[in-house]
């Protein structure tokens, strides 16, 4: 079901990106903040300058994660993703199989739990 949650959240992401003036596109804040809250989850979004979208879904009941924590999570995720992309053997579009990326993501998950 997360697929649907994430998929529909892309609408909001799109809306948020297009909402920012084109002139300001360069200085756009990558972190989009809370996309929308549902009953059980909070969906946060982050869009890189190359329009790669990250979405983090957090349990609504989890109050320990504040905006700042989410923001730093995204930043970590983005850095790790950049490393993956820098790998000359990686073809953009393929599923990411990097162990480093995987471990970073899973540490974040553990931290969030």
């Amino acid at each position, binding site marked *: 079901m997360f697929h649907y949650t*994430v*998929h529909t959240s*892309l*609408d909001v992401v*799109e*809306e*948020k990106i297009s909402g920012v003036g084109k002139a300001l596109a360069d200085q756009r804040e990558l972190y989009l903040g809370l996309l*929308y809250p549902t*009953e059980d989850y909070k969906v946060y979004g982050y869009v890189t300058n190359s329009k790669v979208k990250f979405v983090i879904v957090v349990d609504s009941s989890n109050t320990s994660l504040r905006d700042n924590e989410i923001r730093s999570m995204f930043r970590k995720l983005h850095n790790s993703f950049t490393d993956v992309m820098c790998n000359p053997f990686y073809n953009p579009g393929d599923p990411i199989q990097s162990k480093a990326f995987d471990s970073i993501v899973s540490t974040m998950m553990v931290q969030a739990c």
Partner: protein
Amino acid sequence: MSVPDYMQCAEDHQTALVVVQPMGIVPEDQFFRIYKRIASVSQVSIRDSQRVLFIRYRHHYPPENNEWGDFQTHRKVVGLISVTSCTTTKEWPQTSDRFQGQKEVFGSTLYDSRLLVFGLQGEVAEQQRTDVAFYPSYDDCPDVEKRVEDFVESIFIVLESKRLDRATDKSGDKIQLLCAPFEKKDFVGLDTDSRHYKKRCQGRMRKHVGDLCLQAGMLQDALVHYHMAVELLRSVNDFLWLGAALEGLCSASVIFHYPGGTAWKSGARKPGVSSAADAGKRHRPGALTTNGISADTSTEIGRAKNCLSQEDIIEKYKEAISYYGKYKSAGVIELEACIKAVRVLAIQKRAREASECLQNVVYINLGQLSEEEKIQRYSVLSELYELIGFHRKSAFFKRVAAMQCVAPTIPEPGWKACYKLLLETLPGYSLSLDPKDFSKGTHRGWAAVQLRLLHELVYASRRMGNPGLSVRHLSFLLKKEVTQSLENYTSKCPGGMEVISLPDGLKLPPVSFTKLPIVRSVSLLNLPVSLRPHKVKGLLGQGMSSASPFIYSPITMHSRGDERSKKIDFQWVQGDVCEVQLMVYNPMPFELRVENMGLLTSGVDFESLPAALSLPAESGLYPVTLVGVPRTAGNITINGYHTSVFGVSSDCLLEGLVGVKSSGCMVEVVPSLPRLQLCTSLPRSAHLSSEDLSTSVSLRLFNGEMQQLTITLENIGTETLNTLELTSKNLSTKEKLFGEFLTWDLQDALSHLPLKSGQSVSIPVNISAKLDFSGQENLLHDLNDDGISVTGLPVSSPLRQVLKPRAENKPVGSDASKNEFNHVKMLEAVLTFKYSGGAGQVEGYSRELSLGVRVDVEPSVFFTRVSTLPATSTRQCHLLLDVFNSTEHELTLSAKNNQDLVLHASECQRYTHTHTQTPPSLKAISQSQRTSLLLRNELFVEGVLNQLILEHLQLAPLQWDVVVNGKPCDCDVIADCRVGDAVPLEVKLTNRSKSAVGPFSLTVVPFQDYQNGVQNYDLQDAVSFIGSNTFYISTVKPTENSVCVGALLFLYTGDFYLNIKFQDDSTARDLPPAWFCLPSVHVKAQEPVEL
């Protein structure tokens, strides 16, 4: 009120609600035709007031909604139009009663009503009633619209009067308290005299008047009333009504700001843009005139003040919604307010706020909803999301709606509706069912979700009872991902290539499995070498004329665009099996069985021979050869291939495939040619290294052996063979070959032509191997070594002068030499049969069949060493040949002089041959100097003496003859003479060379040899010359001779030797020293005979 109207929009606040209902039995289609005609009268301009009354028609309206009429007047049913059929007058009273009954349902709120009777034509005796209209039939009712307009006008009159009544009512002491339906019991026993209560009544009435004003087309008044109502109600904390007042305010403002309307699609109202604009224009003057206020600027400002700004509208809406939210029973009102707000936000393009609003809608709990209502609710949510541009969210809700259609709680799941809704979600998930869209560009959309959706589609279509659709979707799914259940369906319903059309007009294009398997490259294969057609003549001119004026140009033609249509530079032959190789791989994690894989071609009749293959899971590139037979001549183009995977046949055109490498797809097919099959009397062997050969044979022969090879050619084609040529070519070999390697006689075979199909012809070919196995350098070297060791003395020998210092002590053992010479030499040749016939011959084509012949030549008998021994005379020498038999058989060697020599296997023997020939005939002899050897198995072997040796065996062209005492002196001849007698000495030079030689000077030096290595030249007192001891020979021309004559006088007895030294005056010319080898003369001087 439990039924929300999801179609609500802000403009509805200014409409009057009219319910149109069928009464009794009215055919549905007829009713809706009439309903449509009635509904077309949605706005009516009132004649004398310039105002417009908007009417909202409903053919179904729950009475409990009507109860909210006081709360918001647009919810109140103010008019009723009943449509009924009445065929006889007898039925009329009954009909009339029922109309009364129907009126009573909405009785409390109705302003007016009409009854449309179809079937009667005024035959009713009763007096004409204004509220009843009779029509003969549903088709014959031209003035329905007119009547409805009249009806609307009458409603307007009532509305207007009510408005005026209420508006002026404020002076009265007792204002009735208007209540929402659920409030009624709350106010029982409340103090009606309190100020608070009064204010509440006032506020609510104000709000009510505002509603009426809005409905009556007096926007401005409505705004004023709403503002007042808001203030009043806010002071008494009457939140529900405050919310309603705020909403009214918003509605009025929205109507003012957006005369075009906020409904995104045709609801009950259908205002065209222009007419709506007109309506908007008409509102304002109407409002002004009825207020009786002159149109000066201050009122404009005032109006602008009253009217909410765009931002305020949203603010107020939010406020109103929050107030509604306080009341559980007002859920529907809240919901509708939300929807209205969303529509306004959508128009303002504030999608995010709209989405928040919609999010709120999702959480509004309306209690128990029926499944149908749920579906409707989700559909509306989906549409609203679509409206604000959230396509994904929209698709999500549509999908939820679709799932709701088939929820397990529903007794009869609506799979059809589900399927339809699911189809509608596809664009939201960026999913196109057309494989064309799929194959182009990169993958779009969320794969996991798309996959799930497709699964759902498949399931729905199956449950719908349409397996064909299911197959098509599954095919598509398979194309994207993996599933195997397709096979089960195809057994029931084969997946074809035709377009499936759904009843609702959607077309499902055929799905071709271009990815099952994935084809990476397509290459047309040339025919095997033996079957390739060769153009007999005119090929060069033809090929050149089309390409370029340059014979060679480094600039290649840029033909990247039409690479596919490029013609390939080889030909196929009609009637022969042609091959196309595809490199395929199976991307699936299971074994893929591809059946009936064949070629799609155009241009000539092509009989494709389908192939079936099975690709292992996730195979690498895998070559597949598809074959077919062109049935006519011409140009053939390979367009694609067809497959049958999981029972689904697909036609895959190359041009539609991405990433397919092709070197061209067009090839010329030439008319049919005969085919020859070749078989030989020898077993076949592996092909020769470089050449493209159809067959090859190999055999082993001893050097000098000859063998016959019989080649049988059979015409296995259908055409008659008319011409046959045979050529041979020796492949480059370093070996010097003596005689013809391959010889044949074709005459016999040619006499059999033309060769019909199935007939055969034999050609005998003789193979003979004659090679030189003598190790050339070694041979000579050994010879020279022997020259020293054997002769010992530098005696006169024709070969002596080429002596070289002995380099090393070579082992003379036969084992070493055996190893050295035992290697096998190889001879290769290609026999080419060129033949033609049939239609292809007319076109100038022929075929070539080539047979490779490889012969490993083993050495049989060869000379390991050749040496010479000086014979007794300078005219003779002994030729020593070391003959080695490298075979494992016993050989008998027979020479010309019938000297037989038996050689055992691997035995080396010395064979002596004496050269007795005189110089003139030596060369001729040496050429015929072949030693015939008889092998025990009766085979003749000829060993050939190396030419190099023969050169050394040639005698020098200058022949020296020394005559002493009238007697020619040669090596071993001892000339006798007497002491005291003069011994005449004659030196004669005969020139046999081709050029003149000379001048030379010769000096005769006598010496004595003590046979102990000491030679005494000091013989002045023993030997005396009569005359000069030095001779001068001037030029000697070819074939001439010159004679020098002198005399010697020996004074003592003894053995004397004469050494004739010579000196060459001409330093310029270098003549070989061997040419001047003069014999030593041995003279024995004896006591003079005592007389």
